[in-house]
């Protein structure tokens, strides 16, 4: 390719470009947004990784964290003493918090703190002095999550009641090192002094408590030997000991950030691909207009490589300029991203300029522009000098052999695959992405063509000329209808699939608003509180929809083998988590309406003294434990072994708002075991719910309540925040689609000008021309929107069927709204770009546009 480097080629490229700079830039502008998305995400990812590395110690707040579900046994305590260093303890559990000032209650995450945690980073409070006050043990106080303070309009000095203890609030917790803001949405954090823990009387049978010990070592000691020692203690003490080190936390977080980044990068890459298609389409039209120039140059002795080089240089230089603009934009957009995702980040991100992202942006932008422009450029080599004498009527790419065409398509697919693999660091993911894109593009084109054929076929022939001409315009030679339907349709497909999925999930979760559905759940009710609590609810005219006993137990053996033996046996496919988990089971004499018997026989009563008792396993756990009817099981019910066998397997509708159980026992077995109760009721409104919670917490502070509508609200907030980030990325595709639309209109303006001028010459009014153009864009908008929507309904249905197990019913308003919006935008952009055609006289336009 020596001609690429020859001065003449560059000189000609410049001369040819200088009078169409604006026009050429429009051709390439489609890649700007895609590059911007790439650079923004990559740069943000880089900054985030850098931040995680810089703040690694703050992520854990200590050098080591040891966590158990039971109080530390003496052996462990003495090992902690042996380890030395600085230590802190947090005992963490969920419980209701009551705020006496307004009587509000909320299920919160209570943390009893002893010691100087966090050792790294700071527990941020408002006012700042609150932390110091909290740590001086002389007058105990509590730190309350900012979200609670705001929600219940609390101020410093107000009281909080946790269990039996009432404490003054010394300040609001604004940030806990290593934790995301989103964590407070799930369980608002309340810190109390460890010395007050016993007085709360919340640590009792059945409570789910995490005991955490934090260490800070002044010496740079190795953590690995400590880990292995703790592992051996885990074995000998027969208890779960979880260890978390800075490296692990950093790794977990890095992985999470990496996955999110990869996903967003791919979404952004789609925008870049769309841009590539826009470039291909524009360059195609442009090169078609350059055939006579190329042929004349060939007549005067330019070689095929020389003529191609002129336009190759233009494509590369303009691609680079487009990439440069996109890169600059991306660096700017990076600063918007933290506000979108900050709630999910456990660190305060320090944004930096990532040279990697900038390099990548410039390289991929230029590369995409080049690869997608390749086909018409290669075809230009085939342009014979003879076309200076005779005009080439067909499209220039018709000159290429099928072999060259498919090789070029292959090269494009390979580029996409290569880049997707680079982004996801997995050739499998890259391959799936490429295949997915090819399928999506294929389906979009197919749907678009089917729609167009249908419209053409069934279009009423008696409609006015304006309508018929507008429709016919979609089929003009060298039309870009397919490109536009592809780019707008894909943007629409992405955004509406996201929207439909979110809508579908929220609809499914919207159980609290159903008339008869339970919406308030009380749990952790002790045996001696059960009756009193039920009476309390009845006094408030609340129905007891369910009152279920729960017994915690663990599996001891399966089919006669100890669970350790089964777990270590690599030949079985029994899932480890199902072996080791704590089972919360109930007992009843009958199945309820959310349960259906699948296999075996349900036995309602049993007597353990007469041999193993028949239990019913839910289908899911039966699969994970590979259970069959008759398999023997031994449960350890808080120290008492109970022999059982699988009497039946049943299907359970886990989506109901009620306690559902993996293992269901018959009556006559567990009645004497220590148990807690769950009570389910329904309140008419939020006030009723608050009243009931308040009454229960006043009387039974250890009982926790879940307000289903609040959970739903939380999930809604969560999903909204996540989908905002994804929609932000999908927006790039929509914007790219609109830019492609704008550039396509600009590119094909010459054709439109000729048509309009011809029509005006033979007597069409300005109004008629406007109408014809509007009808053309109307068709384009409606058909693209429908193409995207049809496919997204299909995609959402598939997602619902295979992934969420929900039957998807499309929301008609979304379809109508989406179509109207996309169509309106298409007409608007189309008309704005065409206005110069309308405002000038035919001769003015012809003179200007033929240059």
């Amino acid at each position, binding site marked *: 390719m020596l001609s690429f480097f020859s001065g003449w080629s560059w000189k000609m490229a410049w001369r040819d470009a200088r009078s169409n700079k604006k026009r050429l830039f429009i051709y390439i502008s489609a890649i700007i947004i895609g590059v911007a998305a790439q650079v923004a995400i990559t740069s943000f990812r880089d900054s985030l990784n850098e931040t995680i590395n810089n703040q690694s110690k703050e992520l854990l707040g200590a050098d080591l964290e040891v966590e158990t579900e039971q109080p530390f046994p003496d052996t462990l305590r003495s090992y902690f003493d042996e380890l030395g260093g600085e230590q802190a303890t947090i005992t963490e559990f969920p419980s209701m918090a009551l705020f006496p000032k307004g009587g509000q209650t909320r299920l919160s995450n209570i943390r009893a703190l002893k010691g100087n945690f966090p050792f790294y980073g700071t527990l941020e409070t408002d006012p700042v002095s609150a932390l110091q006050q909290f740590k001086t043990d002389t007058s105990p106080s509590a730190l309350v999550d900012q979200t609670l303070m705001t929600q219940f309009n609390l101020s410093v000095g107000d009281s909080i009641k946790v269990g039996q203890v009432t404490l003054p609030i010394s300040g609001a917790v604004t940030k806990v090192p290593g934790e995301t803001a989103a964590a407070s949405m799930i369980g608002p954090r309340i810190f109390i002094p460890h010395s007050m823990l016993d007085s709360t009387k919340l640590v009792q049978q059945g409570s789910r408590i995490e005991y955490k010990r934090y260490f800070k070592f002044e010496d740079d000691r190795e953590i690995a030997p400590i880990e292995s020692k703790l592992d051996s203690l885990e074995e000998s003490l027969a208890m779960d000991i979880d260890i978390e080190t800075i490296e692990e936390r950093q790794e977990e977080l890095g992985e999470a950030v990496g996955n999110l980044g990869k996903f967003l990068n791919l979404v952004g890459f789609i925008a870049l691909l769309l841009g590539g298609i826009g470039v291909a389409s524009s360059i195609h039209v442009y090169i078609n207009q350059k055939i006579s120039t190329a042929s*004349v*140059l060939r007549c*005067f002795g330019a*070689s095929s490589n020389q003529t191609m080089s002129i336009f190759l240089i233009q494509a590369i230089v303009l691609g680079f300029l487009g990439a440069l603009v996109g890169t600059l934009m991306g660096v700017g957009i990076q600063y918007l991203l933290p506000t979108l995702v900050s709630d999910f980040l456990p660190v305060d991100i320090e944004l930096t300029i990532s040279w990697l992202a900038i390099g990548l942006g410039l390289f991929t932008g230029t590369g995409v522009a080049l690869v997608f422009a390749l086909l018409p450029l290669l075809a230009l080599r085939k342009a*014979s000098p003879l076309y200076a004498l005779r005009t080439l009527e067909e499209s220039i790419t018709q000159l290429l052999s099928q072999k060259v065409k498919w090789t070029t398509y292959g090269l494009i697919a390979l580029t996409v695959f290569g880049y997707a693999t680079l982004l996801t660091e997995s050739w499998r993911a890259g391959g799936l992405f490429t295949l997915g894109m090819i399928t999506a593009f294929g389906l979009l084109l197919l749907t678009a063509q089917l729609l167009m054929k249908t419209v053409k076929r069934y279009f009423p022939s008696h409609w006015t000329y304006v309508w018929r001409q507008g429709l016919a315009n979609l089929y003009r030679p060298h039309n870009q209808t397919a490109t536009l339907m592809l780019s707008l349709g894909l943007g629409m497909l992405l955004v509406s699939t996201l929207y439909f999925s979110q809508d579908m999930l929220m609809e499914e979760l919207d159980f609290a608003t159903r008339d008869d559905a339970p919406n308030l759940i009380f749990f952790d009710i002790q045996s001696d509180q059960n009756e009193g609590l039920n009476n309390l609810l009845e006094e408030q005219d609340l129905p007891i929809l369910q009152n279920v006993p729960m017994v915690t137990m663990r599996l001891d053996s399966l089919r006669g083998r100890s669970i350790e033996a089964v777990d270590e046996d690599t030949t079985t496919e029994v899932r480890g988590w199902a072996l080791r988990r704590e089972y919360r089971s109930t007992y009843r004499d009958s199945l309820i309406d959310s349960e259906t018997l699948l296999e075996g026989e349900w036995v309602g009563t049993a007597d353990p003294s007469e041999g193993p008792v028949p239990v019913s396993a839910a289908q899911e756990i039966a699969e994970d434990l590979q259970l069959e009817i008759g398999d023997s099981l031994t449960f350890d019910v808080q120290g008492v072994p109970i022999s059982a066998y699988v009497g039946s397997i049943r299907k359970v509708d886990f989506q109901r708002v009620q306690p559902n159980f993996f293992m269901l026992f018959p009556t006559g077995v567990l009645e004497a075991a220590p148990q807690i109760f769950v009570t389910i009721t329904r309140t008419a409104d939020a006030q009723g719910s608050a009243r009931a919670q308040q009454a229960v917490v006043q009387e039974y502070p250890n009982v926790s309540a879940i307000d289903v509508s609040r959970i739903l609200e939380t999930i809604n907030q969560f999903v909204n925040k996540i989908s905002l980030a994804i929609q932000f990325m999908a927006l790039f595709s929509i914007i790219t689609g609109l830019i492609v639309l704008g550039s396509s209109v600009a590119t094909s303006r010459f054709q439109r000008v000729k048509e309009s001028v011809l029509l005006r010459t033979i007597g069409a009014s300005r109004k008629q021309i406007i109408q014809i153009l509007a009808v053309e864009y109307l068709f384009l908008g409606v058909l693209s929107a429908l193409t995207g929507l049809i496919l997204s309904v299909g995609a959402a249905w598939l997602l619902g069927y295979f992934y969420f197990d929900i039957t998807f019913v499309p929301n008609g308003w979304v379809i109508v709204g989406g179509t109207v919006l996309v169509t309106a935008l298409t007409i608007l952009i189309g008309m704005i770009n065409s206005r110069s055609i309308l405002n000038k006289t035919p001769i003015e336009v012809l003179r200007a546009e*033929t*240059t």
Partner: protein
Amino acid sequence: MGTNPILEVTDITQQFRSGDQKLTVLDQINFSVEKGTTCAIVGPSGSGKTTLLGLCAGLDRPTEGQISLNQIDLGPLTEDQRAQVRNEHVGFVFQTFQLVPTLTALENVMVPLELRGTNPKEVEQDARELLNEVGLGDRLQHYPSQLSGGEQQRVAIARAFINRPKILFADEPTGNLDSETGHTIEELLFDLNRISGTTLVLVTHDHSLADQCQRIIHLKNGRIHSDEWNEQSETKAINQ
């Protein structure tokens, strides 16, 4: 046949395939053109004039037969080698002027020599002089769209002569011009032919233009119908 031919066309046949049909556009054409002469190719539409011109200039390959230009056999040459031959020996003037719309008049004229890699200063000097000669000394920096049809064709003529071609091919050079402007262009073409001794081969419908040539080849249905010498008033019957 003359003794000093610049263009020799031997047994040229050109066929196109249209579906299953073979279409013979030129059938067994033989003639040669001597250095410095002027030759018009005339004939009705579809008689193969432009196809013949394209073949003579090496813009296309014949189905059969041989063409040599300035003693160079075009047959074995690659596309790019023929481009080089055109660059060194051939000039073109087209009916639709075919100026590059994005280049100024001056730059359009410079293209053939720039392609050769000649010193840019010299090229520009030559181009300015030629544009002066065709009367466009004050239009150097104008783009084609800013010039009239006659002016555009004059730029095209200047471009055709800048590489001092041994032979100039013109395809209906006055076809798109009014008779007065057309006349000016004709004069320019023949003047330059006389002054520089360039051979002129032109395709035309215009009898008055053809009549000014020393020789008129008449094509009909892809064959040479007649080949007449005008100046010497001698008529040569061609055995086909």
